[in-house]
């Protein structure tokens, strides 16, 4: 029913607005195409990065869309907090500055929940306390090496970038 939906929607939107302004130097919000009857329309995002005019998701650049969708995912996660989260290459289309902002946010969120993040980007790899390296051995078997970065040993895992 509409009430249950709107309750979740408002709460998630609140998280989205906070997270989005934290990640970009602008403001963003969720947007229901039909506010009267949400189930009769869809959901999109509107954002105003910096001091640009408001744009809907579809009009944004590749990296801006990525950042916006990621903020949406983080907002969903925060609506019903859990002890751990895993992210698989969510930073593929972000430039260095945006990847950095995401890395910083995850670092902070990792204070309260466990984050396991797959990435090729140095912006994220350099921030973690632990780095797990995965390689495929000759016999087509994956192998794992773990490195504790909190003791400040140089990571053996070459950052992709």
């Amino acid at each position: 029913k509409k009430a249950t939906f709107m309750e979740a929607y408002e709460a998630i939107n609140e998280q989205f607005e906070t997270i989005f302004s934290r990640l970009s130097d602008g403001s963003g919000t969720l947007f229901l195409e039909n506010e009267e009857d949400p189930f009769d329309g869809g959901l999109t995002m509107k954002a105003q990065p910096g001091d640009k005019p408001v744009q809907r998701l579809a009009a944004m650049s590749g990296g801006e869309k990525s950042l916006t969708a990621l903020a949406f995912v983080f907002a969903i996660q925060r609506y019903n907090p859990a002890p751990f989260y895993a992210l698989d290459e969510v930073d593929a289309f972000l430039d260095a500055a945006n990847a950095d902002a995401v890395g910083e946010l995850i670092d902070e969120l990792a204070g309260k929940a466990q984050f396991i993040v797959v990435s090729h980007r140095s912006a994220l790899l350099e921030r973690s306390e632990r780095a797990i390296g995965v390689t495929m051995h000759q016999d087509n078997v994956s192998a794992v090496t773990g490195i504790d970065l909190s003791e400040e040993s140089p990571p053996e895992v070459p950052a992709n970038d």
Partner: protein
Amino acid sequence: MHIKELVLDDFKSFGRKTRIPFYEDFTTISGPNGSGKSNIIDSVLFALGLARTSGIRAEKLTDLIYNPDDTDATHTGEREASVEVVFDNNDGTIDRSQVINAAGTDSIGETDEITVKRRVKETADNYYSYYYLNGRSVNLSDIKDLLAQVGVTPEGYNVVMQGDVTEIINMSAGNRRRIIDEIA
């Protein structure tokens, strides 16, 4: 509570029993394309019943069993894959009664450590799925219900798969709204 260890045995590209330790803060996983990083993420989805419709990139469950040769080869005899997720529950996020409730018995050992294990076994003509909570045999729904009580659910995007972000961007506005329908 946090995941302290994953044990993958013959799961996808992990053809040898592999223990992967995790710590309670920020861990990154990196390596070349095709090395097995997403397979580690898949193992968590598999063991905790978190796969969404777009699921664990496997046409059938038995595709998740380590297969070193041609994937269409017929297998004789039994093959089996298992994943074990070991949670450090020293902070009592999940309390003992919840585990007893899910396991249907109170002989579950100490709950400062909570272990969820899933096995898939393929025989010549059939396949079987087994679930265990602290060593006791349970149903997938017992595990999902227990985890839902601490906010770990398929619709909650606890695990964000490679391509999920792109999928959210490309999906219709209606489907995007349905993401919230599911959570509400």
